[in-house]
């Protein structure tokens, strides 16, 4: 187990270096530098004098060829220094941690909601397999699964915000947020978060409940279910205690794979709702050619993706005694 873990970590490290190297090369070859883009945004007429440009380039390491600059970046990352954002004049680590909160509000509540709803729906549909109501629910879920989230976001905005006026159109906080009491603040964020959370949730809800149903279907055909029924156990006991508990393994692996999306946020949804999260930051930093921020985010996403895969494998081995991780 231990040597397997070390081997996976080593391979993961190589993969990480490759990814960051490719992305670094790509963004450094995009036309426009953070300085030129920044200047054009502030005032197109105002030109920085060449000496200042040189000085800034030197300060941010833009004067070196990109492979050299990449080496420098790696060296700094090993000392846990992720650099300073060029366009925002802030350390990248702080910038990312500021944006993490809003994204987590959306993703965690959506994940919780998904599990709370998907498990009962999945159990319900496997209990009523093949009946009319199950087929209706199944079809509806399938439609939802295929419904693009950005289209749903626009529909919600038109209906809930524009027509009925129940919810704010976008943003995370109202104007008078700082003068509100604690409960008012929570309520304010709740109202703003509702539409994005719905957009995040409905697709994965459909996916998870179909996933649970499919796994239940497989388990319900096993011999021990027949034994449990023959013993005279009630249908709910059989379904929940005997069948559902045995579908935990694939569910657990799925959690590992959702890890990157938990912190990654969605660029499109966050942009539609002007939500100040990671997805927005990513998009803005690409437009601003803010190299250190892009690299910091890329590093984070890649680590999360790789860690998620590793976690899924380890969970799998822990949850299922039949799976043994071989040492070799």
């Amino acid at each position, binding site marked *: 187990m231990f040597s397997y873990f070390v081997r996976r970590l080593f*391979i993961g490290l*190589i*993969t990480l270096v*490759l*990814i960051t190297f*490719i*992305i670094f090369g*790509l*963004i450094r*070859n*995009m*036309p*426009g530098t953070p300085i030129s883009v920044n200047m054009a945004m502030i005032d197109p007429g105002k030109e920085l004098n060449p000496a200042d440009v040189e000085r800034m380039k030197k300060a941010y390491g833009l004067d070196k060829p990109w492979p050299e600059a990449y080496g420098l970046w790696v060296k700094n990352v090993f000392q846990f220094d992720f650099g300073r954002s060029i366009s925002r004049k802030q350390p990248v680590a702080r910038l990312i941690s500021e944006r993490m909160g809003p994204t987590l509000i959306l993703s965690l509540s959506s994940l919780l909601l998904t599990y709370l709803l998907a498990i009962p729906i999945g159990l319900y549909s496997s209990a009523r397999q093949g009946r009319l109501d199950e087929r209706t629910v199944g079809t509806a879920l*399938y*439609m939802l*699964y*295929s*419904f*693009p989230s*950005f*289209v749903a976001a*626009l*529909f919600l*905005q*038109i209906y809930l*915000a*524009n027509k009925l006026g129940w919810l704010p*159109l976008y943003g995370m906080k109202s104007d008078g947020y700082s003068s509100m009491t604690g409960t008012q603040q929570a309520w304010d964020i709740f109202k703003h978060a509702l539409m994005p959370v719905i957009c995040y949730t409905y697709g994965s809800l459909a996916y998870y409940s179909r996933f649970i149903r499919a796994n239940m279907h497989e388990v319900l055909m096993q011999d021990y279910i027949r034994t449990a029924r023959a013993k005279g156990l009630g249908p709910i006991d059989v379904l929940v205690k005997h069948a559902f508990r045995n579908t935990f393994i694939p569910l657990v692996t799925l959690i590992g794979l959702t890890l990157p999306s938990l912190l990654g946020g969605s*660029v*499109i949804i966050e*942009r*539609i709702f002007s939500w100040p999260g990671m997805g927005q930051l*990513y*998009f803005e930093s*690409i437009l601003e050619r803010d190299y250190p921020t*892009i690299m910091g985010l*890329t590093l984070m*996403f*890649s680590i999360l*993706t*790789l860690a998620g*895969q590793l976690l899924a494998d380890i969970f799998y081995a822990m949850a299922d005694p039949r799976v043994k991780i071989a040492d070799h």
Partner: protein
Amino acid sequence: MQEQSEDNTNAASEEKVVKKSPNFWVETWQRFKGRKMAMLALFYIAFLGFVAVFAPAIAGTKPIICEYKGHIYFPAMGYFRREWENPIFLKDRFRNRFPESLKNKDPNSWAIWPLVYQDPYRRVYDDEWKGLPGNPTQDTGSPSLRNWFGTDQRGVDVFAQMVHGTTIALLVGFVSMGIAGVIGIVVGALAGFYGKWVDMVLSRLIEVVMCIPTLILILAIIAILDSPTIWHMMAIIGCTGWTGIARLARAEFMKLRESDFVLAAKTTGVGQFRIIFRYILPNSLAPVLVPITFGIASAILIESGLSFLGFGAPPPNPSWGTLLNLGRQNLQMWWLIFFPGMAIFLAVLAYNLIGEGLQEASDPRLRDA
């Protein structure tokens, strides 16, 4: 159903003494046909293909066929490529006003017009078509008898834009997943067939590509290119979207390389190249088609999402995502969101249904279910 098809095969085998056992493809198709929703979805995609091919004949302002000064022309072909419209119309200063110009410049001319006289690129003006009022502009163009799906802020008909945008939606799916399919199958085949260090290296490659966010790659490459076109986008979506296909192909090849028919081929001295492409590949193609179909659905989503963010096909090209983006700027114009939104949804749904149908048809475990 089941019995009937069995009878048919029995009858067939009586006629021929030696009958080839049905290959994997035929079998998969037989089972796929039995799934109503999947077949319906397949018909819908065929319908979209029809719309895409005949878009200029469905909505346009150029005649499909016309006789002008004694010659027959097909001006509507200009919608596919600018150059396919005969230069005579440019020389004679038609200025894209065909009905009026044809009549004025040659009274003996005749023409067959598209079903709907609306243009996907420009606003139709007053009296361009006898008695037809011009399109409403700004946010007043709600759906009407003239403009079935309304008009956008510039007064361009939404129905015409959607009909012509079908081409992009379909092409994006097919071209990008065609590229992804080729890369994915080759990488997966090599990794699965050879194993050992080849598998090790290729698996790392798959992991690296999986971790690179598609969005950053597309934005970076669009920024690097001087004039990005829809084709570049398809290529990028294809070059990043092959990992799922490769992993499945790898698993299939790993499984099949141990099978008896491969061993038989090896013992009779068939070359490795031939074993990979003529023996294993045809047998693993049906399961590999599953991620490809799902991939088409997600390619359509990526394209419309990018157009929606404003990074799609360059502006004059009509695309469903671009329409959504226009609608987002003015939420009062619900028709700019509803119709393209539903079009994207239906296309994605159809591909997902086909993918699921294929999955169940090609999975031997579900065969008897």
